[in-house]
């Protein structure tokens, strides 16, 4: 689903954000990108979204070499990718429903599709009852659920999440992770950048560790343990989805 081959990204000032990255992510996988700030997690996400072009190397997403993709095809690529960010990126002047509908409107989906899809995805994230609220009337966790709903409403093949729990307390984060896990189990490939070890330990998924732009570890599901967080949050990924955020 996603393949990076010998990718390097050097920013204009000479800062090397990532280098020598070879990575292959299969369809339906759930992959954590971990590492300290500045290790290149966000750059990798931006490269996969084609918000940046690599300085060298090639990147395939959903079967296409996006390093040679012409600019006018980028929107089509992005329609197959959902994105979630630490700061939610909701439009403050639109309701929950309108924020989610917006993602479908601007790619030209017909009204009847919007009418059926938006309530469905709001139900999935547990916000069906708050469809008419404004973002500033919601908690942080709820806002992130809206953002996930917006990312998922178009049923993307891939969900890229850059520190989605970075602004949330641990209990709320658990709810968000459950939601991402549910989305992953629908067949969506999920790539999540985080430095929250507790979450990584508890989820027992593939972990790609970055340091100063290089992949220093790539361990598959269950083989990765870090710290003693497991007993605290163990198994929450398997619990029922809900709206406890």
């Amino acid at each position, binding site marked *: 689903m996603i393949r990076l081959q010998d990718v390097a990204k050097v920013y204009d000032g000479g800062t090397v954000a990532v280098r020598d990255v070879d990575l292959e992510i299969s369809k339906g996988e759930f992959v954590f990108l971990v590492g300290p700030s500045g290790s290149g997690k966000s750059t990798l996400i931006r490269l996969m*979204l*084609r*918000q940046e072009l690599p300085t060298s190397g090639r990147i395939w997403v959903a079967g296409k070499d996006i390093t040679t993709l012409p*600019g*006018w095809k*980028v*929107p*089509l*690529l*992005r*329609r*197959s*990718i959902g*994105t979630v960010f630490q700061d939610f*990126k909701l*439009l403050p002047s639109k309701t929950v429903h309108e924020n989610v509908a*917006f*993602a479908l*409107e*601007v*790619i*030209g989906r*017909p*009204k009847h599709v919007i009418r059926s899809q938006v309530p469905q995805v709001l139900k999935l994230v547990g916000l069906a009852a708050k469809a008419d609220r404004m973002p500033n009337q919601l908690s942080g966790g709820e806002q992130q659920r809206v953002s996930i709903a*917006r990312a998922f409403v*178009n049923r993307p093949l891939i969900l890229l999440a850059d520190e989605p729990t970075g602004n949330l307390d641990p209990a709320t984060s658990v709810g968000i992770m459950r939601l991402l896990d549910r989305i992953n189990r629908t067949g969506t490939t999920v790539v999540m950048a985080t430095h929250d070890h507790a979450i990584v330990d508890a989820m027992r998924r593939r972990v790609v560790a970055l340091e100063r732009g290089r992949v220093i570890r790539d361990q598959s599901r269950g083989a990765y343990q870090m710290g003693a967080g497991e007993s605290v949050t163990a198994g929450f990924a398997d619990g029922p989805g809900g709206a406890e955020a």
Partner: protein
Amino acid sequence: MRFQYILEQAISNLRRNVLVVFAAVVAVLVMLALVFGTIVVRWSIDKDIGRWDDNVRVIAFLSDDLSIEEIDAMQAEIQTWDEVDEVIYFTKSQALEEFRDIFSDQPSLIDIVEEDPSILPASFRIKPAEAADYSAIRDRLVVVPGVSQVSSADEAIDALVERAGHMRAFALWIMVILGAAAVVLIANTIRIAIFARRDEIGIMKLVGAGNWFVRIPFLLEGVIEGVIGAVLAIALVWSVGGSIAALLSTATDGGSISPPTDFMLRQALLLLGFGAGTGLLGSAFGMWGFLRD
């Protein structure tokens, strides 16, 4: 749905920045009003030159010692020149009559002329084929024996032609300078609109909105500004155009001074296109490098 969305975005952009939009519209208005005004003035000058064209005469004063036969022969010869449309013989008595007519309010002048009729010689009044031919005719007349003096309204014509030329250069400079100002001001409103909506645009790009879907509302915004400016300029010039033309015209007979409606309509349509083009260009400049993926 999408068209409605695009239009709504463009209009809400315009409403959000009323002041800067106002500045841009005024720039377009002033530029196009001056351009349109210049077109109207040019029209009336051309019309004026046309009037002169009809009235330009080269006058060849004749020596008093010519016989009727000699005069007839000269008239016949001049008539064959390519530059000449018509030659009319003007006798001394006709000249005196005309003089009396022109200076009827100054009897002392008339007295002087009547005492000495040789002051007013007989003449040929020669109508050139084209107004511009008068100098060629004059050059040929000077060497014709029996012609004592040649006069023509050349200075007035030259002045008029020159005025028309200046007007054209003036109009061009106004178009260039004010056009550039209008483009920059429109670009500025577009940039402000993009800035005001940068979060929304960021999300649109993230979820895969087409590049043109993002751009068109801004292009449309610039075009609307340009067209509004053009419409106001047309209304302004249309309402005062006649008086401008009258002010600059040398006509004294009060003949048709304002340009005809079909001429004005054609120019107005041109102006609308020009306004829309200015808006489009301004938008393009405003978006330059800002709405890439």
